């Protein structure tokens, strides 16, 4: 129960996720992988686990039916997932069973992303400027108070202690010391950013609402990248060969072969599926979560059928 006395008489209600026939066809907000395994999380507490590079999926029982927004593998056993109404889950057996972890009890806070850098240091970000961190593998979480309260949609690690924190109102923050200090960058756009793909030399490609993609080599000088789409760009990933893929509108992905200097449109097999998040499987297949399940693209699928 919430600590203070709230005027809202409604009580948060929760319970185990329903193991449903159509769970695999529901909305999956995030996907993350580890070797041959991958986990996708989404609405109604749906958690799908694949141990064969995303070819087949099985729903795993979850102790919540709240919508999950993010998933992150720490190592081959530990997986974290966060979602709406401040729900935080942890699995210690590679995603087969999950337990609720108490970080915050506030039904009005939505956790939007979770990230671990190494096995000890972790972050959870969410709506209205919520930022939590842990230094002991998630045993204790403490809130890092912020002056501003935008929704933080993503926290991404670029290695070498560099972190990117992305969110509403053009929020693009960079930290060079694992989140001790944050440096707001001016990415020339006041709308919402949903994610960042870090570049070498502390630059990044950030993307967000209405097809907005901005690119900077160093974080100081930003350049707007024009594409054909003006769809909301939910997510993206950098492939092992350096190519970048972003989700675009229904039935479409964006592909860049030059570190984000330009993008071309790649069609998805399902024209009506809205892509949300991406992960390159261990065998090079691309796993795309959508609002109607998960699509697996074979590695060669990305090369063909591109159009400017």
């Amino acid at each position, binding site marked *: 129960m919430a600590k203070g006395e709230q005027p809202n008489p409604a009580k948060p209600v929760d319970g185990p996720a329903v193991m449903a026939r159509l769970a695999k066809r529901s909305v999956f907000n995030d996907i993350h992988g580890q070797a041959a395994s991958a986990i996708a999380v989404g609405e109604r507490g749906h958690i799908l686990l694949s141990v064969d590079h995303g070819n087949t999926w099985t729903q795993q029982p979850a102790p919540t039916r709240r919508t999950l927004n993010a998933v992150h593998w720490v190592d081959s056993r530990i997986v974290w997932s966060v979602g709406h109404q401040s729900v935080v889950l942890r699995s210690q057996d590679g995603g087969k069973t999950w337990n609720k972890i108490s970080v915050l009890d506030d039904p009005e806070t*939505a956790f939007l992303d979770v990230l671990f850098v190494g096995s000890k240091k972790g972050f959870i970000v969410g709506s209205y400027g919520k930022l939590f961190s842990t230094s002991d593998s998630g045993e204790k979480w403490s809130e890092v108070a912020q002056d501003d309260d935008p929704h933080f949609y993503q926290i991404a690690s670029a290695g070498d202690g560099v972190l990117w924190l992305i969110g509403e109102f053009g929020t693009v923050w960079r930290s060079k010391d694992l989140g001790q200090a944050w440096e707001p960058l001016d990415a020339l756009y006041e709308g919402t950013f949903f994610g960042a793909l870090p570049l070498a030399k502390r630059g990044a490609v950030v993307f967000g609402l209405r097809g907005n993609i901005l690119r900077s080599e160093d974080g100081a000088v930003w350049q707007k990248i024009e594409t054909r789409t003006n769809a909301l760009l939910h997510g993206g990933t950098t492939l092992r060969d350096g190519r970048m893929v972003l989700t675009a509108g229904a039935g479409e992905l964006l592909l860049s072969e030059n570190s984000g200097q330009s993008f071309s449109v790649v069609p998805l097999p399902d024209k009506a599926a809205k892509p949300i998040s991406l992960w390159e499987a261990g065998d090079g297949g691309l796993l795309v979560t959508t*609002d109607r399940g998960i699509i697996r693209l074979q590695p060669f699928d990305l090369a063909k059928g591109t159009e400017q």
Partner: protein
Amino acid sequence: MTKPTLLATVEEWLFRHRLGFLVLFLVLTAVLFGFATQTKVDARFEKQLPQQHEYIETFRKYQDEFGGANRVIVALVVKEGDVFTADYFNKLEALTDEVYAMHGVRQESVTSLFTPNVRFTEVVEDGFSGGNVVPADFETTPEGLARVRENALKSNYMGRLVTDSFNGAMVMANLFEIDPDTKEPLDTFAVASELEALRGKYEDDKTGVHIIGFSKVMGDVRSGALNAITFFCITIVITALLVWLYSQSFLFSVLPMSCSLAAVVWQLGTLHLMGYGIDPMSILVPFLVFAIGVSHGVQMVRVFRNQLFEGVDAVEAARSAFRELLVPGGVALLTDTIGFITILLIPVPTIRELAIAASVGVAAIIVTNLILLPLMLSYLKPRAGYRERVARRKEKTVVFWHRVALVTRPRLAKGLVIVGTILFVLGFDQAARVEVGDLHQGVPELRPESRYNRDTAVITENFNLGVDVLVAFTETVKDGSVDYEVMELLDRFEWHLKNVEGVKSVLGLAGMARKINSGYSEGSLKWQVLPFNKAMLAQSVGRVETSTGLTNLDGSVLPVMVFLEDHKAETLRQVVAAVKAFDTEHGREKIRFRLAGGNAGVMAASNEVVREAQFPILIYVFAAVILLCYASFRSVRIVICIVLPLALVSVLAHTLMLWMDIGLKTSTLPVVALGVGEGVDYGIYLFSCFLAQRKKGLAFTKAMDAAMTQAGSAIVFTGLTLSVGVGTWAFSALQIQVDMGILLMFMFLMNMVCAIVLLPAIARLLFRSE
């Protein structure tokens, strides 16, 4: 013995005043004809609803508030390529204008790509922005068409107004219930023919026009029902031929046929006076009445002419025919009536009307063919040479009947009974597997291959639209729609139903609110959730208008529309069970989930009613037959002889249903009762003859042989006449008539065959001692 005296008194009185009675009957017929011509086709949907069923009570309770819109859909689908051509868009625009101008259309409800209410929205930095999908300055240039395509993709109308693959688009419109000009209920038939005219205008080798909607169904059902007149004429012609073949005389054919037509006139006239119209289901009754009338009339002619041949005069011959047949004919007709009355058990008004119509018709036959006919016959003088003609024919048939009578040889009889038993056992196993409900796609009233049902198939394949909808009503407290606890449960309810096998999609307030909340969060799919914050929940829910049918004004009733893949009984049962299970597990005082609205909801209720009535109706009709037979013959053995073949035939009729994919539903359930009620006639006639021979002192074999020779031809004739009467429906445009026609024809024919083959065989075994 008072009975013969009473009969004699009645006979004496009738025949003394025969001219007076004739005139009276003629006048009565003329008057009733006047009423009969005023009979209206009355195919109200309301009449198909099972009375007092829990689902229907709920359906009625919310009918006014959420009264399913009377909607018509005209879809324009290209045969190849996509819709982005100048020709297509010109057509779609013209079609939209025509639908807009149609009489009875609520103009504000007209929706197509060309109407201003069809807008797209896109999320921009400071909220929503949007415009018309087809902009005001639209031109059919490649650029203009490309822009429409983009706008459509951003709109909420993909799959709804335009297909996902862009091979078609539709115009939707809601109709007034009450005609604003005449203040009378809207003439849906006029609407249907206007719609048909649109098809003629816009369909060509490049585009197909597909029309669906309740009014169109009503129009198609009515024109199908009106074809019944053609079928009736065909039936009369074929029957006349049969009667002539049997009677070998023009006058002897005309009289029983006229009397039977009089029975139909009396039936229709009386029903009109009782305030009933005729609906597509009870339209079969006049056919049945006519056929039953003819078969009884022919029996009358048979006895009359036998008397004539024995040398008595016409009046005396008519009197003895009356005397001989009033009681067995009356009993037979009474049994028919009782068979029909058991149908009243099914609490569905259309079925009850059918039962009433059939009972009235059979009662009319008692007057027209057992009383009026002998009175008319008494004026008749057959022409010279008639007797010889009949005798010649009889010689031929007698040989045949002697052969048939061989079935009473003990060994053959035993064999036949064994075959009958095996058939019964095999049939029973099959009969138990007959499914309840309609088993086909589309509107059950119309044939699966009818234009309407093909249109339905095209539209449901190409658009995200289901025509089989079950509505579950969530009853909650005032403002339940902005109460998180209620909405969270509603959301789970919607998901629960969506996961049921056979469910295509689910539309409910919680799902809508989730989507809208995502819209308020710049379209991010991560926010496709119900906001816990009450103000945000209210903001999302508030955007859903009551016209969607997903909420009432104070948010206390939240219907969930469940679109189904089909309306097979199994599908309906699963959805109904899922709703009930969810209500049992999660329902509470504050939130209840109730069944059911929508066409599938009504079907689910009908199915339950049919399932409940299927055994009682058989038990009652057989109980009635057994009691009446026992009352007439006072012999358990005779009752067994008559009832067993009937039981076999009704089992075989169920087997036929299984083989022909006909489900047990409100239209087919009465068929067995009708068939059994009618089939008993044969047995009664045969045993009347048999007993009359026995009274003359003949032994079993001789008596049965004589009975067969006397009544056999009449039985075959009756079976054929009845089969023709209903057999013509097999060509009807209405599937209910096809099903009923085929099943009844089967029962009538099988009853006939069993009566002349199995019944004497059983009798042989039971009367073994003799």
